[in-house]
C-alpha cells in the first residue's frame, strides 16, 4: 500500500489549475497557429492572430488566458493500492481554492437560483474512477460556460443510427456558432445511459487535441464529422471561414437495445486541461 499525503494532492491540483488557466492546451495552440496560416477571410485571420498573441501575453504576464476561468472539473483515477492521508475530496477542493485565489482567477461559482457566490470557485466537479495500481492520476480541466451553454444531449432512437448521431452533432456545432468562441473543440458521448452519455462527452474533451480515437471505426467517424463541421463556414469567432472546429473526439459506451443517447459537449478553442500522476 502506497501512501500519498493530502497536502501533496492539494499542491498538485493547485499547480494544474494555475497552469491550465494561463495557457491553451498544447495541441489546440498548434492547431490555432496552423489554422491562422490557412485562413483566407480577413476578420477570421485577424481573430486567429489575436488568439495566438493572447496566448503569448498570458504566458508572459501570468494573466489568465480568458477571464472565464470556469468551473473546476477534475477527473481522478485512484489506484486501488494507494492510500490518501486525510480526505481526498477535501484535498482536491483545497487545491482549487488556492489556485483561484493565488492566480487572481475569477470566482464564477454560485447558487443556481439565489445567486449567492461561494467565494472561492468551489465546489470543484470531481469524477472518481478506481483503477488497478498504486498511482493517483489527476486531470484538471477548467470549463468556461460560453461553450458549456451551447452543449446538448439527445435520446435518439436506434433507427436514427450513425446518421442521426452525425446530424445531431453537426447541428449542435452550427447552433453554437459564434457564442462558444470558435474554433471549437468538440466532445461527443454516444451510448450508455442519460447521465453516462454527458460524462462521456466531457471525458472525450480530456483527450489531447489532434489525437484520434484508438478504434479505427470511431477515428474515421471523428474525421468525417469534423470535416463536415468545417464545411459549415461558421469560422473563427463565427465571422465566416474554414476553421469552425479544431478537433472532435468521440467516447462510445455500450447502451440499451431500445436507445441511442448522444451528447455533445462544446469546448472553446483554448481546450484547457492539464494532467499529473502522483
Amino acid at each position, binding site marked *: 500500500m502506497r501512501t500519498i499525503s493530502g497536502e501533496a494532492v492539494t499542491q498538485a491540483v493547485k499547480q494544474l489549475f494555475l497552469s491550465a488557466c494561463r495557457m491553451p492546451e498544447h495541441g489546440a495552440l498548434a492547431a490555432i497557429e496552423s489554422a491562422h496560416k490557412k485562413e483566407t477571410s480577413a476578420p477570421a485571420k485577424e481573430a486567429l492572430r489575436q488568439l495566438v498573441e493572447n496566448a503569448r501575453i498570458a504566458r508572459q504576464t501570468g494573466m489568465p488566458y480568458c477571464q472565464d476561468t470556469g468551473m473546476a472539473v477534475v477527473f481522478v483515477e485512484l489506484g486501488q493500492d494507494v492510500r490518501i492521508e486525510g480526505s481526498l475530496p477535501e484535498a482536491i477542493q483545497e487545491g482549487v481554492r488556492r489556485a483561484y485565489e493565488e492566480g487572481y482567477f475569477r470566482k464564477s461559482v454560485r447558487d443556481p437560483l439565489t*445567486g449567492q457566490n461561494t467565494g472561492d470557485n468551489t465546489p470543484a466537479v470531481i469524477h472518481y474512477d478506481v483503477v488497478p495500481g498504486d498511482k493517483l492520476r489527476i486531470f484538471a480541466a477548467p470549463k468556461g460556460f460560453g461553450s458549456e451553454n451551447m452543449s446538448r444531449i439527445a435520446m435518439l432512437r436506434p433507427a436514427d443510427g450513425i446518421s442521426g448521431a452525425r446530424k445531431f452533432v453537426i447541428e449542435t456545432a452550427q447552433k453554437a456558432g459564434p457564442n462558444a*468562441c470558435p474554433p471549437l473543440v468538440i466532445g461527443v458521448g454516444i451510448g450508455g445511459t442519460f447521465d453516462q452519455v454527458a460524462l462521456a462527452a466531457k471525458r472525450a474533451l480530456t483527450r489531447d487535441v489532434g489525437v484520434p480515437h484508438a478504434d479505427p471505426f470511431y477515428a474515421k467517424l471523428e474525421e468525417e464529422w469534423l470535416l463536415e463541421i468545417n464545411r459549415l463556414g461558421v469560422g473563427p469567432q463565427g465571422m465566416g471561414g474554414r476553421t469552425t472546429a479544431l478537433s472532435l473526439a468521440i467516447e462510445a459506451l455500450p447502451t440499451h437495445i431500445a436507445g441511442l443517447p448522444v451528447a455533445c459537449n462544446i469546448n472553446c478553442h483554448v481546450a484547457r486541461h492539464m494532467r499529473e500522476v502522483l
Partner: protein
Amino acid sequence: MTPKHHFKHVQAPLDKSALKDLKSGDRVLLSGTIYTLRDAGHKRLLELLEQGEAPPFPLENAVIYYVGPSPAVGDRAIGSAGPTTSSRMDPYTPQLIVQGLSGMIGKGYRDHCVVDAMKEYGAVYFAATGGAGALLSKTILESKVLAWEDLGPEALRQLVVKDMPLTVIIDTDGRDLYLEGPRTWRESHGILDPSLGNEAECPTL
C-alpha cells in the same frame, strides 16, 4: 500581422452621427470611455430606470462592454477581460437602446428585438475576440467601479480604453456578419447550404 491602417478609429462615447459609417464586417480600434455590464447589472439598471431614477452613467451615446473581468494583478488596471455571450443581455437591451445606448461589445448572436431597436433608434453591435482576455486587458488603461460593487465581477465599471480591437457585427441597417460571413464563405466554396441529411422521409409503400 494586420496593418493598423485596415482599422477604423472610433471614439467612445459614440456619437449617433458616427454610426452610419460603421458597416458590418468593419474592423475598428475603439478608444475612450466605456462601461461594463453583465446580466445582474443590467437587471439593476433596468429597475432604476423603471423607478424613474437617474442611471449611474449617461446612457446617451454610451458604449457597454459585456465583460466580467478577472481580478487585477499588481498595478494593472484590470485582469483578463474578454467578452461574454451577449444574448443573455437581449431581454434588457432594446430598452437601453431607446434610452440612447449607441454601442455594445460582446460575442455571439443577438435576437431580432435587439436588431430591430438598433435599426430604429441607431446602435451598433461590436464583437471583441472571445477568449482573448489577456490581449484585451492590455487595451484597458483605467478601470473604476461606479456602482454595485457587491456584484463582484458583475459590478458596473467605467473603463478607459485605447485602441481596443473590435469587429462590427451588426450595423444600423441590421446587416449581420454572423449570418453573412459564413454564407459568403460557403458560397465561395460551392457549398450552398449546410446539408444535414436524415430528414424524416416516409418509406416508399
